[in-house]
């Protein structure tokens, strides 16, 4: 019996004449850190938006397994502002807390502390750096106590310290039973955190493989990626 917590099959979507996803399928197991890789415009964000329900006009099926006999909770950091720039980090979190029916400010403070924004909680978000906004979005996602966390290019705009912090945070969250689906261009980073990998090419997931199987003979993610997107010729 499989242990998939999130699956999508035969996903097709077109924008005008262009087919963005063509029979794409993804299988995320419970406890995975699933790294989704693909070149710019390959449809990674579209696939993640479909999985989170932000896009509804597509064909195919998306299934989410239950967690502890209840609906699995989703949280996502999609690569849009998705923050009220005129409000502070704390106010953005508070607005989100109201949506969740939470009134306890301690949870907000804890989430901000987890992502390292405790000192900037009353600063307007419009003055935040890209890295700080990414961290705030992650804090907002954590407020939802998710079972599945979907992250679209979370390392974009982060400085080296930020990338290391994020990597540690993802590993920590994963240890706490959060399944993570992450898309990124930074292959070396994905290689360090992912337990499973999916390569998206020409609108399809052309390879899904566990990190253990992929890297056992010393193959790098870059080599694996090139193999499935350039027919094995790394220097194509």
């Amino acid at each position, binding site marked *: 019996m499989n242990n998939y917590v999130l699956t999508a099959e035969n996903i097709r979507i077109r924008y005008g004449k262009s087919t963005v996803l063509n029979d794409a399928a993804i299988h995320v197991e419970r406890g995975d850190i699933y790294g989704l890789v693909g070149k710019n415009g390959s449809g990674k964000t579209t696939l993640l938006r479909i999985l*989170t*329900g*932000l*896009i*509804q*006009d597509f064909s195919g099926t998306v299934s989410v397994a239950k967690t502890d006999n209840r609906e699995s909770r*989703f*949280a*996502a950091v*999609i690569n*849009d*502002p*998705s*923050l*009220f*720039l*005129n*409000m502070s980090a704390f*106010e953005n979190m*508070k*607005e*989100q807390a*109201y*949506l*969740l*029916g939470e009134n306890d400010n301690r949870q907000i403070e804890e989430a901000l502390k987890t992502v390292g924004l405790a000192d900037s909680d009353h600063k307007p978000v419009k003055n935040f750096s890209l890295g700080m906004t990414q961290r705030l979005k992650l804090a*907002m996602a954590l407020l*939802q106590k998710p079972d599945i966390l979907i992250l679209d290019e979370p390392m974009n705009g982060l400085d080296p310290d930020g990338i290391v912090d994020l990597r540690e945070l993802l590993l920590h969250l994963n240890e706490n039973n959060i399944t993570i689906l992450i898309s990124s261009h930074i292959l070396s980073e994905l290689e360090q955190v992912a337990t499973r990998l999916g390569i998206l090419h020409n609108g399809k997931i052309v390879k899904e493989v566990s990190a253990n199987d992929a890297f056992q003979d010393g193959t790098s993610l870059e080599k694996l990626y090139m193999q499935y997107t350039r027919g094995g010729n790394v220097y194509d």
Partner: protein
Amino acid sequence: MTKVLRSDLYRFGKSKLFYGIMAFTGILALSLMLIMRQDIRIGISVFGNLTAFKGIEDILRIGTEYQKGLGILVAILISVLIGQEYQWKTWQHKWIINKSRVRIYLSKAILSSAISAAVFMLFEFIALFSSGQISNTLTSEYAATIVCGFAIYAALGAVICLFSMMIKNNTASTIVSLCYVLFSETLLSAIRNLSNFSASVAKIVESGIRHSIYGMSTIISSTSFTVDMTISIVINSIAIMLIATVFGLIVFRKYEL
């Protein structure tokens, strides 16, 4: 539903624009009334009609005629507050947290109607209380005007909410909402003129105009308004609110957020 509403209410409460427009409304009502009480008559003559206020009822009427000022403030406030959600793509949180689009839309429609009606009530109450003639002004006819004005502004809020939810661009939705407020009189006059080719069409158009937000606003600010009209105007306003909300819901459900 209450969670989405509380969340939206919290955000609106954090908006400087909201407080700015509320403050401007209050100051406007107070200033106009103080000028009137000082017997200062400011105005121009347009084709022989003096625009200067002749009495406090002229100032109170400014509130009921949304197209002459307050409607502009309402249009800017609602379209900016809703437009920011498209601009910053903040719908995503609500949707991912499993809030249905029906709830998201209804929350916006309820708050838009409430804000619109609140702007009107604020203007009227400040004007009334600063007039120094509360007992003379507070007639059953004035109370009926307030009830009708409240309903009309709530309907106006629902219609502006519809425009703001349908048009994803913040600036475009503000422009469309402002055009609706400023040019509805001109547009309806043009439609009235065009319908004159047939008596039956003209009759239908005339009835439509009378039951529009603009038509009702004209009726309650005219001398022909009577208390008996209150119920029909309130029902008519509720019908406009419902139609605008149902139409908006149908379209919004299909939107990519």
